[in-house]
């Protein structure tokens, strides 16, 4: 007999500044009333894995309960000077860089614990980056079901078709987490994802 899975762990992965926490905040605000973390234009705002237990979503008469795991953005390089350009003082920039490196390690180590993963990409950026390919390659290698979110479709430069063309084997849904555009389709896709877990 099959038992229905409850409180599955769904990880939010992606490169820095793609909008993982914005999407996690949107979901948590919609369904729990509280946001999960801070967002910023400065990359690597999320430097520790943060999670919310038992997020319950109701959609078209169905209920999905899951543990939302928001992870720090994965990158292959961290340069504190980049943070100085955003106006941070040298000491703060160095501290942020140190925490960001540890955050990336943490993100990768949490991969094995995930039962399903939402990869959040910035639809206005080139989807063919090696980090995107490495993240998705690792999810597939671990046989974890994946949904790709092309975020920031409110931006003029956003191109969902390019994201779909880059990852033709996977479900891609275009949204704007900031403006709440196309969230219904996202929730529909999230239910489908959870079913595969």
């Amino acid at each position, binding site marked *: 007999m099959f038992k229905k899975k409850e409180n599955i762990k769904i990880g939010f992965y992606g490169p820095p500044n793609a909008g993982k926490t914005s999407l996690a905040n949107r979901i948590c605000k919609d369904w729990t009333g509280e946001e999960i973390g801070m967002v910023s234009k400065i990359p690597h705002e999320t430097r520790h894995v943060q999670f919310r237990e038992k997020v319950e979503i109701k959609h078209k008469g169905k209920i999905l309960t899951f543990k939302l795991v928001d992870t720090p953005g994965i990158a*292959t*390089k961290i340069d504190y000077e980049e943070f100085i350009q955003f106006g941070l003082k040298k000491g703060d920039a160095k501290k942020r860089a140190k925490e960001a*490196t540890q955050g990336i390690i943490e993100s*990768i180590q949490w991969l094995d614990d995930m039962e399903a993963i939402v990869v959040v990409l910035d639809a206005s950026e080139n989807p*063919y980056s090696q980090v995107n390919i490495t993240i998705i390659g690792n999810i597939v290698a671990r046989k974890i079901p994946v949904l790709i979110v092309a975020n920031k479709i409110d931006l003029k430069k956003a191109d969902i078709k390019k994201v779909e063309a880059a990852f033709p084997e996977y479900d891609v849904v275009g949204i704007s987490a900031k403006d709440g555009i196309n969230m219904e389709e996202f929730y529909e896709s999230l239910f489908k994802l959870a079913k595969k877990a």
Partner: protein
Amino acid sequence: MKNKKLHGLSLQVIPFAEIEKMGISERVKKILNLVLGNRIVIIHGRLRAEEEARLIEDTMAMVDHIKGFKGIELAVIEPNMKDRGMFDKMRYNLAKSLVGDSAALTVIGPSSVVKEIRRDPKKIELLLS
């Protein structure tokens, strides 16, 4: 291994056979040691997804501990890479000229060096001449 050098910048080509029998830790360690020596490493073939993730993990641990090291640029380049930028195509042509045709090539370098090449791509042309 072939090794070309110019103004402190050097390329190191590793045939896949050379790292094929190594375990993941040894393989990543070898690559990172070369990258820390300011070399751009070209592997004839590609790493497994888990090895790429381990490479990023170990790189981040080193960024935290080695002064001046800011990370790596990693690119797996396939011959049929449509929609890729000029920089990727340039890297592929460069790598191909060193190792010959291949199904895939992996290029790994210190991010500071790759940043320098982006600023002045002529450095690569000089390296090949």
